[in-house]
């Protein structure tokens, strides 16, 4: 599947799909997917990750930021970040830069 993210390829950068909008509300994030007329909610960590993606951070840099902010193991942060990115790619919320 094209949205699979390799554990090794985390230097990749992503951006919000041009047909989507992202907004943070009370720490949580809302994606509005215009083409599908769908809406997607991400939790506070997810919103943090998306804000970093929007700031052109690589997945490696995001993992470092999540590890520092939420005091989680780097391995766990990487696994969670990749899972989120895969979900958002599959939903059409983000695309590779």
């Amino acid at each position: 599947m094209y949205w699979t993210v390799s554990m090794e390829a985390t230097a990749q950068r992503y951006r919000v799909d041009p047909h989507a909008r992202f907004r943070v509300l009370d720490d949580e994030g809302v994606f509005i997917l215009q083409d599908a007329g769908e809406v997607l909610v991400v939790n506070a960590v997810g919103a943090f990750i998306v804000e970093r993606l929007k700031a052109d951070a690589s997945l490696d840099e995001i993992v470092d930021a999540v590890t520092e902010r939420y005091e989680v193991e780097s391995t766990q942060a990487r696994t969670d970040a990749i899972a989120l990115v895969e979900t958002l790619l599959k939903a059409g919320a983000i695309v590779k830069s």
Partner: protein
Amino acid sequence: MTALTLEVHGCRYRFSGLTPEQAGRVQGRFGPLLRSDDGHADVPIDVHYTPNRGGFMQRPAGPREYRVAVAHRADSIAVAGIGFTANIDRRPFRAQLQTCLVDDWFLGAFENLWRVVASYALFARGALLMHSAAFTDGARGFLFCGRSGAGKTTLCGLADRLELEVLSDELNAVAERGEAYELRAMPFAGDFGGLPAPHPPYPLTGLLGLAHDTAARLDLCSRAEAVSRIVASCPYLNADPVEIDALTTRVARLVEGVPLRILSFAKDTTFWNVLDREYGSHRTALSG
């Protein structure tokens, strides 16, 4: 050719260029909303009858539901469905309908276009059109947003058994008024049926999402989830890149004023006990 003016909550939609047969069908369906036609319109809609069926999407052999195609452009919105195409200009706000229909199918084209036009006309006036069910006990208005399958029609059937007045199981509007919000019935009845009739606005007392469960209860949800549920329920605008940011901002403001709660309900009337108890103590009064 005939012109008909239909008024919904103070907004006058003037449909001109109707053939006598088309006008008769509109009068039969939307008669209570007709106003004397003095040429004044908030939203002018020109109808062009073109008896060339080959130029339009063909009607199916039997009855079926289909999704109207809507394409958003910078300065207009294009709409197409069975037997019609239409164009809505953003500024000045107006629409043109081309159709090969004059029989019962014409009402389908007419209403399909009117829904899109009304969603934009309402939005321009500070309101939101939502896929939703709504009912009132005469003093309080309750709106349940959700797409097909959420349980809107089921809930309306249960509300009807309780002799609550169902406004629609498909499309209703919410408008800010002073520091409160009001619920407005729209002339789009959905599966629950009924001929369109003028309704006064009701105070929006309960703004709810729907979930199925074995017992009725109310749950809070986060503001992000509330915004997501309501934006997802706002047809046409939620897919329009020109309006999506303004829509999200308006919805966020709405849920600040009227927090969204999730009503879980079984297929019985016990949900009303939960709603009546929860919202009984803080009835929303309209200001002004």
